[in-house]
Each structure stands twice: as C-alpha cells, then as structure tokens.
C-alpha cells in the first residue's frame, strides 16, 4: 500500500504543479514557459498513446508519429479550406471549429490506424517493427506529395481552432487557454487509460504481451484485441497532433518523420514503460534535455545519442520506475 500511495502522491504533485504553472510563470515574468510546457504535455499525450500499445501491449510500433501528423494535417487542411473559402468535398468548405476538426482528427487517425494495423499485426517481432516504420514512411511521403497543402514546406494555419467559450487565438492569453485545454486532455486521457488498463480489455492486452501463445490457448482471439488497442492509440495520437497543429499554427511532414517516432519511443522508455506517468516524465525529461543541450551546442544530437544508448543499457526501468520503486504499477 505504501508504494501505491507514493505513485498517487507523485502524480497528484505533478498535476498540481502543472495547474499552477501559468500563474507562476507570469508571476516570475517568464510567460514563455507556458508554451514550453504546452509542448511537453502534447508530446506526453502522444507518448502516452504509444505507451498503451508499446508499454502495456508489447507492440513495438516504430511508426506512431504518422498518426500525430495525420491529426495535425486534418486540422490544418480543414482550416485552410475554411479560411481560403475553397470547397473540399461536395461544396463543404472545411471548418475552423475545434468541435468538428478535433473529432475528425481522432476518427481519421483511428481509421488509418485500423487499416495499417490490420496489415501490420499479421506479422510479429522484427517484421512488425520494420513494417510499422515502412508504413509511416509511406504516410510521410504521401503528405510531402500534397503540393496543395505546402508539401515539404508544410502548411501555415491562419489561426487556432475556435473553441468557445475560450478564445485560443487571443493575442494575450490564447496560449494560456490552450495550455489548460492540453492539460485537461492529457490528464483526462491518463485517467481513461488507467481504467482501460485495469479493465478486462487491459488485462487481455497485458496478458498478450506476456505470453501470446498462452492467451490463444485460453480462448482469446488475440489479434482482435491488439488491433483495437492499436486503433485507440492511433486515434489518441491523432488528437495530440490536432493540439500540436493548434499550438504551432503550422503543420509539416516533419511532424511524422520516422525520427519523431523514435523520439516518442525514447520518451516512453526514458520515463518508464508500462507505467501511467512514465511517458509524461519521459517527454519532460527528453525535451528539456534537448533544450539544455541545444543551449550549449548546436550539435546536441551528438551527445543525446550516447545518452540514449546508456539509458537503454543501464537504466531500463526508466525514471518513473525509479521514483515510485520498481514493482506492480497498473491500477491496483
């Protein structure tokens, strides 16, 4: 019970800190930290979605960033057509409303995850890793080829989505409103995920990670459950991408480069695979580390590489695992 309290305490502390961050940042006259932590939380959401299939489900998907990009492009394209008054489909000119764009981003990412997952999950092991990577590249090239939406250079988004009653595009406080939207999205998902992990579905997923053969012989059609998890993860990552497009008011194929998928995986591992807060911690640490290193040298990646190797070789349980003590995590 002590371990359980530690995890809940630490989570509550993190939530509290994040809730108080904007007023603190403004108080210290450093408002740009709001944007920094918005960014971290958006990546944390994406990494959390990957954690569902990677950390809990054991599926090493190396193409998860594709859904991040797809979500962002849904927002971008819908907004583009709306602000340019260009018909998109059957006379519909897109929209800048978050209440339409964001659900669409989720649905479309989920659908693509369904198709790509259905094919990829017929394989396993190394094949699966390579195939998810290859499919992500396919999506990447597809978006590069969309000249109408900026192609390689990316697509500028005129303004953030309409999210009444909050004005996300407000000149002074828009980024603060967005910050809280992201915060709610992240912790909302974390809560849902904790219920999911402890549910019957979550148990099947974790069982399949441990011993798929055993699960099959017990009577589980494992493929179906893995595919469902894959779709959920893709859909949520698409949502993160939609938030990202809003944060940057810009979206480009770089958001789904395979190195981005790699970064997401690093966040999951660094923070602690198969733990609820691990991806959040991982995102914070990795992005902060990149920023700190970048302030010393433009060649920060040269140092990040060996750091990553050392983490993989020696600190496998991740930071969150270390903080709350190695042991049982999920929803007990």
């Amino acid at each position, binding site marked *: 019970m002590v371990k359980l309290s530690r995890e809940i305490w630490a989570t509550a502390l993190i939530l509290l800190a994040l809730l108080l961050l904007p007023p603190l940042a403004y108080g210290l006259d450093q408002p740009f930290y709001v944007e920094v932590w918005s960014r971290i939380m958006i990546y944390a959401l994406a990494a959390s979605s990957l954690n569902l299939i990677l950390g809990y489900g054991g599926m090493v998907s190396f193409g998860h960033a594709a859904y991040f990009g797809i979500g962002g492009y849904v927002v971008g394209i819908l907004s583009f057509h709306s602000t340019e008054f260009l018909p998109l489909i059957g006379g519909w000119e897109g929209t800048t409303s978050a209440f339409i764009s964001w659900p669409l981003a989720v649905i479309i990412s989920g659908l693509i995850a369904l198709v790509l997952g259905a094919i990829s999950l017929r394989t396993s092991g190394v094949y699966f890793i390579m195939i998810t990577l290859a499919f992500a590249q396919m999506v990447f090239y597809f978006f590069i080829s969309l000249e109408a939406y900026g192609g390689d250079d990316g697509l500028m988004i005129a303004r953030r989505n309409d999210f009444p009653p909050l004005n996300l595009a407000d000149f002074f406080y828009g980024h603060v409103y967005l910050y809280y939207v992201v915060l709610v999205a992240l912790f909302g998902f974390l809560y849902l995920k904790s*219920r999911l992990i402890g*549910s019957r579905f979550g148990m*099947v997923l974790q069982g399949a990670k441990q*011993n798929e*053969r055993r699960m*099959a*012989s*017990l*009577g589980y059609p*494992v493929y179906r459950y893995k595919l469902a998890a894959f779709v959920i993860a893709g859909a949520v990552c698409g949502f993160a991408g939609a938030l990202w497009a809003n944060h940057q008011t810009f979206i480009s194929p770089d958001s789904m480069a395979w190195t981005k998928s790699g970064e997401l995986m690093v966040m999951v591992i660094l923070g602690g695979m198969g733990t609820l807060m691990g991806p959040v911690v991982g995102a914070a640490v990795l992005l902060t580390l990149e920023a700190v290193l970048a302030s010393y040298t433009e060649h920060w990646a040269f140092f990040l590489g060996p750091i990553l190797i050392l983490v993989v070789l020696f600190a496998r349980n991740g930071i969150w695992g270390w903080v709350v003590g190695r042991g049982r995590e999920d929803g007990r």
Partner: protein
Amino acid sequence: MTTKPMLQVIDLEKTFGALRATDGLNLEVMPGECHAIIGPNGAGKTTLMGQLMGELRPDAGRVLFKGEDVTALPPHTRALKGLARSFQITSILKDFTALENVAMAVQAHAGHSFRFWAPARKDRSLTDPARAALDKVGLGHRADTLASLLAHGEQRQLELAMAMATDPDLLLLDEPMAGMGVEDSARMVDVLQALRGRTTMLLVEHDMDAVFALADRISVLVYGKVIACDAPDRIRENAQVRQAYLGEEAAH
C-alpha cells in the same frame, strides 16, 4: 446405444522435411475417461499435442472434437469449444499473480473482453471461480503471489488450475508432472484423480506411476503411430509394447 467419442483423431499425418513425426495416427478418447499416451522420446507426442490444439496444421487426416471437424480451426476457437490445455514447458503469465492467471482463463469464457471500464481484478464473477480452481489444485494460499515467484511445482499446479478453471470438456495434459519431485507429483495425481469420471482427460506423461494410477486406457505412441491401445494391465503384458518401450525398464 453407442456414445460418441469426445475426441477422434483419424489418419493424422505430419512431416517435417524428412521426418515423419505423425505417421497415420488414429486415436479415440471416450467421454469421461482418462486416456494416457505414452511412448519413447521422439515418438511424436509433442507434435500430436500441437495438432490437437491447433498450433500445427496436419498434412493429412482429421481431428474431430465432440463430433465436429476442428482440423482447420485455430487454437482460440478450439479453446472456446471446450478444449483446454496445460503446457509441458510452463507457460503462464509471469507478471500476473496466480489468481490473475486463472481469472484470465475464466474471463476468456465469459463473453468478449471489449469491456474498457470496470476493473477486472475486482470482478467477483471472475475471481470467485478462479479461487475455487486454485483451491482445487492446492494453490489457494498462494493466490496473490506473483506467478514468477512461485516454485516450479507450484507453477505446474497453476498450469493445471488455468486449464481446469473453465470446466472444459476435454483436458489435454502435456506432461503435467514434468520436473516435479515425488511429493508434488503425488499431490498432482490426487488432484487429477478427483477429476476422473467428470472431466475427460488426455494425458501425455513419462511418469509411469502416475499413468498406471490414473489411466482408464493407454495408447502407446511409437514413431508417430499408435501401436497399441488398451487397459493399463493389458498394456503392461503387451509384448510389442514391452519391446518398444517398457522393454528397457523391464530389463532392469
């Protein structure tokens, strides 16, 4: 009035390259019986198990379960039809507790698992039958222990509990006593004795004491074929069998 066999294996064949692992195998298991399969190493027992469970596709022949042709069905479908299996090399869910392991077995037969909200660990409809199964194999006191921390013998018991938890029509037991000491084996035999008559069992075992204590009939498997199928006493007397299998032991 003839009772239909629970399991029928008809002319089963499986070849790996040059090796005929299963070579025209015929077998019948009647409801309620404990049918043992014995045979020297390399006789094809593991291959047979794989084909019965659906992990291996036979090259020829059929497998009928409760009168239905299941030859082309995958393992999970057969499991849901009432076929349960314990593995020769312990195959449990190591990061779950013993209770959770057995609960997964129960859950598999409790409809689909696309339930995303309610905590499964607190679901009495899963944990009660799971505890009952654990008690039956004598592992009740270890229900909340992590499976990876159980002793080897206890893990074998857990294997059995998982297979039993769903009250299967046919229990495929692949060397349940493997690697067990004398005491643990004896306990396992008692558990299996308690199942006799109610649960149909197909038992692959090397432990001859267990086999002769439990089996109603014994099939002897040599080079992928059943060379004899009879009551235990008559198998003991069978000259062919003695030569092929018990021969070396009789000589001691």
